[in-house]
């Protein structure tokens, strides 16, 4: 959190954000857009973001995104980049911006993380704010108790959001949960019951335990087709296995740029395994679909599944 700990890009965005402030009536007029405002968190909690979106009501596209911020100053960088990524996305697509996607754009270079691990929550909160704004925009159904309840006095994240974060990053410890959600950082009484503080209705230790059990459960359910070696699987199982690898390593980058891919078929061609794919959305017609992106997909599958895999886009 001091000037020395972040990379150049984050420092620059903290000091000179392009999207910090509010949207004026003139700008709205020029864009012929409606103003949507959503506040996430509070000063009392220690993190507060007010998002202002100029939205084209015909297709719910965010034409302009601005924010104001109270919290860890690195949040200025995260929200500024997030505001940029929101542009020209529909509100529901903006809510799908991934952690990896946002974090990657904040890096100075591909191999150095944008923030120290203890401040990962900065990115989580910027995205949670957008998700909450999206829910408010679409006036989604009644929130469940888990979605309404904030277990910690120093984090704006609900129990549901914390659980999602635990699953997303496969968090194993309370420290890790704190790093990614800010919960339990200052309000340590929310972690586990102790005799010095009054009882809380929810504890992070319970939330973590419960979520880890759910993760193990889901892993067990998924594991079934993958116990067999890849070449012995039937085509349907092979497709599941390949999709899993794509989901883990590739898909978010395609989605972030407005694209995606699907597997059409898998054929064995002697020793070689041919995977036929079709590109979707912005990927189809993109120059990289036959070069960089194709190479990334093929090398990932070669590395993680079988080195005789060949990817053929239709």
């Amino acid at each position, binding site marked *: 959190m*001091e*000037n020395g700990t972040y990379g150049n890009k984050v420092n620059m965005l903290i000091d000179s954000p392009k999207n910090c402030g509010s949207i004026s009536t003139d700008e709205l007029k020029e864009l012929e857009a409606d103003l949507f405002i959503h506040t996430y968190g509070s*000063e009392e909690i220690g993190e507060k973001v007010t998002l202002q979106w100029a939205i084209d009501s015909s297709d719910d596209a965010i034409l302009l995104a601005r924010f104001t911020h109270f919290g860890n100053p690195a949040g200025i960088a995260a929200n500024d980049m997030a505001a940029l990524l929101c542009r020209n996305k529909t509100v529901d697509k903006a809510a799908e911006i991934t952690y990896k996607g946002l974090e990657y754009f904040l890096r100075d270079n591909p191999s150095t993380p944008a923030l120290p691990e203890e401040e990962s929550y900065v990115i989580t909160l910027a995205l949670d704010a957008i998700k909450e704004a999206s829910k408010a925009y679409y006036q989604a159904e009644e929130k469940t108790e888990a979605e309404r309840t904030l277990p910690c006095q*120093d984090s704006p994240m609900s129990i549901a959001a914390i659980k999602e974060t635990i699953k997303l990053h496969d968090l194993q410890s309370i420290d890790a949960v704190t790093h990614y959600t800010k919960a339990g950082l*200052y309000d340590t009484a929310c972690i586990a019951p*102790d005799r010095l503080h009054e009882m809380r209705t929810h504890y992070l230790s319970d939330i973590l335990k419960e979520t880890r059990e759910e993760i193990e459960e889901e892993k067990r359910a998924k594991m079934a087709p993958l116990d067999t070696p890849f070449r012995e699987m039937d085509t349907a199982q092979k497709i599941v296995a390949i999709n899993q690898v794509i989901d883990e390593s590739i898909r978010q980058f395609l989605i972030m740029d407005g694209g995606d891919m699907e597997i059409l078929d898998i054929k064995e061609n002697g020793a070689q395994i041919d995977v036929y794919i079709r590109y979707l959305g912005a990927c189809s017609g993109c120059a990289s679909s036959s070069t960089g992106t194709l190479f990334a997909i093929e090398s990932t599958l070669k590395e993680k599944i079988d080195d005789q895999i060949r990817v053929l886009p239709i």
Partner: protein
Amino acid sequence: MKVYLDNNHATLLDTQVTDAMQPLYTAHYADPQAMHAEGAESRRLHDQAYEKIRASLHATEADTLIIGADTDALHSQLLLAFYMHTIMTGQKNHLILSAHESDAAYQTAAYIASQGCHVSILPLTSDGIVDIALLQQTITAKTALVSVTMADAQSGAIIPIDEVSQICKAYNVPLYTDASHLVGKLPIDVQLLDIDYLTLSTRTMHGPGGTALLFVKAGQTLPNLMQPNHDHAGLVGLGKALELAVDAQAFEMEDVRELRDKLEEAVREIPEHLIITPWALRTANTLLVGFKEVQSETLLWELSKRGIYGSTEQGRHIVTEIGADPAYRHTLIGFALSRYTTEEEIDYTIEKLRDAIDFIRTQRTH
């Protein structure tokens, strides 16, 4: 310009202290207990340091002085020593700590509580000082130890430790206090105050960090659970730093206070601020203040960019404890001056602080 205003956490070592410590590393490094001539020389420096400490605290020859790790560690060890010696043996069943103590102490107390001991944490009044009336109501004959620091490390609040001591004496309960944030600011007389256990670090008084003093009043039965470290250079440094601090006390109370007051006056002119603990109840070098809509870390970032180093106090829930507006909870920033702080530095700080707050309020939170 670089302005260091985080002196309630760590301070520059006084050159006189480093000069006093140097020979312990380069020439008189022999063990003070050794029976040879080198040992005797080390012993002499050792004893000299203890003399300085006794004089500064007005302790008697019969009182015990132990040099150990820093105050947090000593306090934790003391709590555990009492736990094992008096609580596990069934004689006592209660511990009292004020809300001014360190995190380390609370963690140790939480462990003791988890073993079944009753632990009371005395809250603060709206002045930011531990509620003494509540101490009176909470203490019993079965209380093993009362822990109340002399001055709050973050807010600078001065606790009326004489009142605390009187209450403890009435119930025959030992009192532990830490003097680190009061030394050099107000006189400390362990006999007058009738203190049973005291810790003192000169880490925030231009002395070495990592070594602190434990004072044990004559007659207190302290089990052999508290053992000294062997940081002889640290002991000599602490003794010298303590001597210098007591000498500089008048300077601290007048000149440092004047500079701190200048800063405080400028702060009072900034709209929507909250100063923790009234001026009259605070040590001369400290100002803990929150500015609405200005988050601590963000302000620290802006100040740090301008070469000013204060402290954030996000770990404490002091705003909640004193019952102030919760919007200030995450806005506190601490300024702690030292006898090295100059007027030029304070003038610069005032100018940059105004800039930074204005900037954040107009460009970031709005």
